[in-house]
């Protein structure tokens, strides 16, 4: 896990000081080492901040270049199959000088060209500068675990792991994307490739960007689409395969020259990882949890049970309350407004873990693969009147109905077109999208079961845009790497190839994980309802803070939202809408000054 960045200019010379500023802005992502490369003609520059796990010697220093110095590479993340790729490339005559996964990118690019990302397994964002062919190739992993942003004006191109890296160069004039404000309020995130800035983009997950350094234009292409199938495999056989693939993925994720710990919430996802590390892989595990004082449902009590039953070393921190004021600090780290309610607990648990280890594994992706969210259950469909449920037996919901259900499931204080019209001031209404949820249409697949459609939406939007962004920034703020074994693409493809009847039961929570953990952790862990990593709702009902911050805040002063609307929300104690406005206000205060 690292920070990467680059600046390319058509006319001006790239200023070394600008690259240094970029590097400093990304220091928290990689405090162990830093590197910079500026091309001979001074039109291209790359930077790298390193958080080292493999080959801790200087041989792992980046930017790394090919022997003839025509190709330069920076990598953020981990390529888990680098050993296999290395062997494959060696068999083709490539000679390696280090033990790192980064070097695989150089030889892999020379051998496979733009098809390189398809060969990679892992979490990554990389840039390959090919000076001979005047080309830059950016790539991002299949599920968007590692971030990558790019920005572009007519004569300069930039990329970086975080937006602040790009802005730190001082070359780019920030232009706020007024439509993105609507997207944020509607979705809690800004969907790729857009960002809060009009001229800064996210490279979407599973995409490559090829930039022509002469013409100064780019093309984007998607190199991976999840493969869906409706294979009705025997349940036991399917479970065995799942179990095998998960262990395989987990062992790959534990490859490092330093110890790897685990987040442990006390739910089945992280408990499975801790159990497999301790018992199946004999990997001495340090587990980290957060609890909430005075809350009966605080998960730390369950995490402790799991740690005890598996023998993992356990570290916990019990929070008195959530300091909503800290949101402002987080908005600096997140660069964009993001309103996932677990941003604060995730930040806290990352801080705790970084006191002991450099990296942890975490259970993200399990709910998406195994159908673990409440919105996956047919009985929770928002339009599920008894009559409609009867109808749905013969007339399956179409995509638009699924989309409506998903919008309601995701909203937490719905901001649809009409609500946005009431909330936003007139300048923003000109930029109001007709459908603030239209990005969901990108992931429409007809003729598949509703659950599969929901899982696809989860993988591409909720998980990719919200969950993984939250985890990356919260952990990187503390220079902690988080690895997500459930998101190995072989495992994902396998699970998506199964018919839902094989792995999903609407009356039961994630049957495969129950099978895995049965008799290994206390039954209470298996039978308790799913709980988000957020703390009690009352933490988010701090109306006095909302009123104090928002009524005299920048959103009102600068005419972003209508005061009347805000007052209505406060009167109605509409805490989820207020939470989103509070996040937006906090972001505004940090970035719009």
């Amino acid at each position, binding site marked *: 896990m690292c920070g990467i960045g680059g600046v390319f200019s058509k006319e001006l010379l790239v200023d070394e000081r600008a690259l240094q500023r970029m590097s400093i802005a990304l220091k928290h992502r990689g405090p162990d080492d830093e590197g910079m490369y500026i091309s001979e003609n001074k039109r291209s520059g790359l930077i790298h901040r390193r958080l080292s796990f493999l080959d801790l010697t200087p041989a792992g220093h980046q930017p790394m270049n090919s022997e003839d110095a025509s190709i330069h590479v920076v990598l953020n993340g981990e390529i888990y199959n680098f050993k296999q790729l290395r062997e494959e490339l060696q068999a083709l005559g490539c000679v390696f000088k280090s033990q790192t996964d980064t070097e695989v990118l150089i030889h892999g690019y020379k051998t496979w060209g733009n098809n390189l990302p398809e060969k990679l397994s892992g979490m990554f964002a990389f840039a390959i500068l090919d000076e001979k062919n005047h080309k830059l190739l950016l790539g991002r992993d299949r599920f968007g675990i590692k971030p990558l942003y790019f920005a572009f004006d*007519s004569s300069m191109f930039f990329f970086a792991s975080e937006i602040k890296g790009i802005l730190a160069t001082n070359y780019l004039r920030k232009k706020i994307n007024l439509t993105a404000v609507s997207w944020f309020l509607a979705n809690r995130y800004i969907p790729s490739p857009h960002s809060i800035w009009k001229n800064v983009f996210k490279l979407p997950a599973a995409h490559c960007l090829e930039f022509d350094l002469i013409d100064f*234009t*780019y*093309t*984007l292409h998607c190199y991976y689409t999840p493969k869906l199938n409706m294979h009705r495999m025997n349940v036991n056989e399917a479970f065995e395969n799942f179990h095998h693939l998960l262990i395989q993925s987990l062992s790959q994720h534990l490859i490092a020259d330093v110890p790897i710990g685990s987040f442990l919430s006390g739910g089945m996802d992280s408990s499975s990882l801790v159990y497999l590390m301790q018992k199946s892989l004999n990997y001495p595990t340090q587990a980290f949890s957060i609890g909430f004082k005075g809350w009966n449902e605080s998960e730390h009590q369950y995490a402790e049970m799991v740690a005890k039953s598996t023998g993992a070393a356990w570290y916990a921190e019990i929070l008195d309350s959530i300091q909503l004021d800290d949101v402002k600090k987080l908005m600096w780290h997140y660069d964009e407004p993001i309103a996932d309610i677990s941003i604060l607990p995730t930040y806290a648990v990352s801080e705790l873990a970084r006191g002991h280890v450099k990296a942890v594994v975490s259970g993200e992706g399990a709910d998406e693969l195994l159908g673990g969210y409440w919105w996956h259950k047919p009985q929770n469909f928002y339009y599920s009147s008894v009559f409609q449920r009867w109808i749905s037996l013969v007339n399956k919901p179409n995509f638009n109905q699924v989309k409506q259900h998903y919008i309601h499931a995701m909203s937490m204080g719905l901001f649809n077109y*009409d609500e946005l019209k009431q909330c936003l001031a007139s300048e923003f*209404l000109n930029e109001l999208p007709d459908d603030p949820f239209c990005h969901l*249409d*990108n992931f429409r697949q007809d003729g598949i079961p509703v659950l599969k459609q929901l899982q696809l939406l989860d993988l591409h939007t909720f998980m990719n845009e919200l969950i993984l962004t939250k985890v990356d920034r919260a952990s990187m703020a503390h220079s902690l790497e988080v690895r997500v074994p459930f998101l190995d693409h072989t495992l994902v493809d396998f699970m998506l190839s199964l018919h839902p009847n094989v792995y999903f039961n609407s009356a039961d929570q994630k049957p495969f994980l129950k099978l895995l953990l049965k008799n290994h952790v206390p039954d209470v862990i298996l039978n308790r309802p799913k709980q988000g990593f957020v703390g009690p709702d009352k933490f988010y009902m701090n109306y006095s803070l909302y009123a104090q911050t928002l009524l005299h805040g920048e959103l009102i002063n600068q005419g972003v939202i209508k005061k009347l609307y805000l007052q209505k929300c406060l009167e109605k104690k509409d805490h989820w809408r207020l939470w989103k406005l509070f996040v937006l206000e906090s972001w505004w205060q940090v970035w719009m000054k």
Partner: protein
Amino acid sequence: MNRAFVFVVCGAAEHLNMLKESYAWLLARTQYPIFVVTDSKRNEYPIDYPNLIDVKVDSSFNHHQASIYLKTYLHRILPSNMLAVYLDSDILAWNDNVDKIFDEYVSPVTFAPDHCKLKQFSSYAVNCKCLETFQIFRNLVEHEIKINDIYSQSNDIFIINQRRLLMDLVANEKSSLLKKFRFYLRYFLSLRRFKINEFILDKSSQLWYDASGHAIMQNVSLKKIAHKLNLRWNILKQEIQLADGRAVFVDNCDHLKENIESKFSIRIKQANWQHWNGGVFLFHTGQNLFMQTWHDLTLQIFSDPNWKIRDQGTLVATVWKLGLQNHPMLSKTWNLIIDYNTSGIFLQDDGSFIIKGVKIFPNFIHVYHHFGDTSWDLWNKIQTFKPK
């Protein structure tokens, strides 16, 4: 970096006249140079502008093809290192903010969204039979309407305008779910007469009267017409549909998507994608990939009988080929489409338009159909905003 606006014009006097009008609007409101690109030999009468660029286009092209050729080739025609805004000739610079459009540029190109989506646009880009099929049924339905509503055949300009105004008002009254609910509730609660502004509907005869008591429109039952013509009537959407469920009055097909895939091997993954409008766009003459790809693909369809001579279908193909389908677009304020055929558009005295109940302050307006038609009330009102 240099900045400029650019128009392309070629051939018929109608287009040359249109340019004269839009050029005058823009000239009064911009600080930047305005280029006009043409093939002068084709023009029905000579034109003269300060920054006129005359380009000889292959004589085998007709005028329409020549205009498209020039438009998609502007990156090679204009001076290098220039940020340019292309404008169709039916686009009017609406206020003094027009120069701010240059700040909206996001590399490599920035277009505005079209007023419809891909499925609706499809049959206007390729020669499928859908448009004709729809047209046959539309003619049948319209014929029935004419029989039942004799006022629709009136040539009296007063009645035509009153009917238009009434239709605009009704469209506005139904522009959101809530408004629609209120509209029908008012309708059902009213006794014999139902009123919208100065118009009155006599519920028993279903006749609309204007303020002076003249009958101007007969409400007709679309449901009955649908049944008579053996078409489907969708009660929820209140629309007449073909047997396959497509609305008779909404163009809808996948043939453009299919033709793009078969001709260029480019897959459009979003069936009803919000495509771009070619009327206003920003591009940089130093970045040629997009424009050159558009130009090359467009030339390929000129001789293909499956395609209509338009640049917008190949614009869709270019965007998807280069992976720019989610690239930011200009907001509608930069290309507000004022369509003669769309009901419910109101121009306010402050220069804003109300469309579907939403107030918009545009910077450019794009006058679709009937540009310069002095029998169109809205056009006449637009003229009152013309810069002196």
